[in-house]
């Protein structure tokens, strides 16, 4: 088993408030891991720590055998691609093609190789026909797919999506999730995917779900295992995925004897 990301004894304080205290997490290469937690649980901070956008107080972050440090931060970043929450605030180029080119320009890819790489990356996310479009003519979902293409063009081993669908309409959310599934199929073991989200339906697509709250790992396991812990999820401000919640509600039945009137009353409480 190759470890894509290894986090050991991580400590990090934000405004003198300890957020992570002795946090440990291993992510296997080729896995799709969903990091879930409610707002302020520390999941986005964790992504920024992994990329060296924030610096940990203590502990180790190791990405494919390379420990994150001031010297290695650019090499580590080259292995990781990240898609952020706000589609507009990560669109650097004036057009779709220019945006995908931005990362290639930074990594000193030869100008003559760029058009082909840009086309390839845009084709993967199904945006090849929008090459010359400007960002303000695209929908949120389309912009996020371009952001994904921009990241893919750099051929990272790990892609982190930090609430990438949170600002999208249901339609855009669906296309982005479909694109991710397709990516995972296409790259298989060569791509480690980390989706940070508070949308449980998204988390069900992952191989492994890690629930974080107050900088601690609350639950960790397959979606089936994690989503069987309804009580624990609720205590940490999370809902079950819609299908699970429905099944749970349908499964409830009265424990004591009831007459007709009581049963009607009980049934009406289900609708709340």
């Amino acid at each position, binding site marked *: 088993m190759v470890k894509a990301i290894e986090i050991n004894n991580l400590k990090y304080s934000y405004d003198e408030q300890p957020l992570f205290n002795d946090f440990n997490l291993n992510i296997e290469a080729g896995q799709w891991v969903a990091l879930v937690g409610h707002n302020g649980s520390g999941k986005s901070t964790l992504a920024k720590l992994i990329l060296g*956008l924030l610096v940990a107080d203590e502990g180790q972050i190791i990405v494919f055998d390379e420990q994150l440090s001031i010297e290695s931060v650019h090499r580590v970043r080259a292995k990781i*691609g990240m898609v952020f929450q706000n589609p507009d605030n*990560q669109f*650097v180029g004036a057009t779709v093609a220019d945006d995908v080119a931005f990362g290639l320009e930074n990594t*000193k890819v030869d*100008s003559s190789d*760029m058009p082909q790489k840009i086309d390839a990356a845009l084709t993967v996310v199904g945006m090849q026909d929008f090459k010359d479009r*400007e960002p*303000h003519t695209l929908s949120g979902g389309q912009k996020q797919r371009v952001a994904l293409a921009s990241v893919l063009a750099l051929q990272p081993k790990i892609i982190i999506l930090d609430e990438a669908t949170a600002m999208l309409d249901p339609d855009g959310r669906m296309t982005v999730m479909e694109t991710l599934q397709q990516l995972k199929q296409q790259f298989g073991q060569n791509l480690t995917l980390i989706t940070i989200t508070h949308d449980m339906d998204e988390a069900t697509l992952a191989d492994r779900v890690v629930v974080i709250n107050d900088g601690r790992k609350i639950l960790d396991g397959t979606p089936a295992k994690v989503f069987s812990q309804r009580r624990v999820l609720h205590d940490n401000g999370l809902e079950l995925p819609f299908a699970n919640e429905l099944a749970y509600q349908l499964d409830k039945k009265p424990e004591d004897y009831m007459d007709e009137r009581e049963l009607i009353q009980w049934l009406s409480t289900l609708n709340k």
Partner: protein
Amino acid sequence: MNNIMIGRFVPGDSWIHRLDPRTKMIGTFIFIFVMLWANSWATYAWSAAFVFAMIRLTKQPFKLYWDGLKPIFWLILFTIILQLFFTPGEPVLFQAGPLKITVPGIINAIYVMIRFVLIILMSTILTLTTAPTSIANALESLLKPLKKLHVPVAELALMLSIALRFVPLLMDETQKIMNAQKSRGMSFSTGGPIKRARAIVPLLIPLFVGALQRALDLANAMEVRGFQDATQRTKYRILSYGSEDSKAFAGLFIFSVLFIAIKFFIKY
């Protein structure tokens, strides 16, 4: 809000679109420089003919150019009025105190109007047919000599292209904040100038906060995608000066020579 979009680019495939952005930039400057020497109907007519020929070559509907003129309508009107009332000379057609309308005044006002309109049309041709990134690239290339003086040309060009890219976004945001405040009873169009100026303050604060947040987000996104140093990057859009660009300069040269000829030999 959309019709005052500065530097609006319309993708296309005309001969002008395909020219090197540096050619278009220098060409525009040369044209404006030459045109400032116009002083007769014939020279203005010749300049206008050149501009309209260029507009035809861009293969864009004239309405787009008209939209480009609209925002500066008041500025044009203001200068026309100044010229109209304050040009001395004979014969005087009308006088009221210090204000007088003279024949040279009328002619001057029309000249100034034509000059204004032609300069705006010419720069609209530049911005309409050139992607903002290309303009930034052209600027970077043209200002390259300044690098020797330690002017951070590459950084400035990148800043310019990002700034241009965020113009429509910030316009949208302004509109949204205005609408949000209007819906809570704020009025931006009533009251005296002081009251109106005050109404702008609560508009600017959220706009600035939003812009700073965007800047921070963008900085993160740029760093994650490997941005380290603006000078150590390759370029996706390579500027290439070709034979078509030489043709463009030749055309401009012919225009200028004929312009001088008209200026000295035709007295109308």
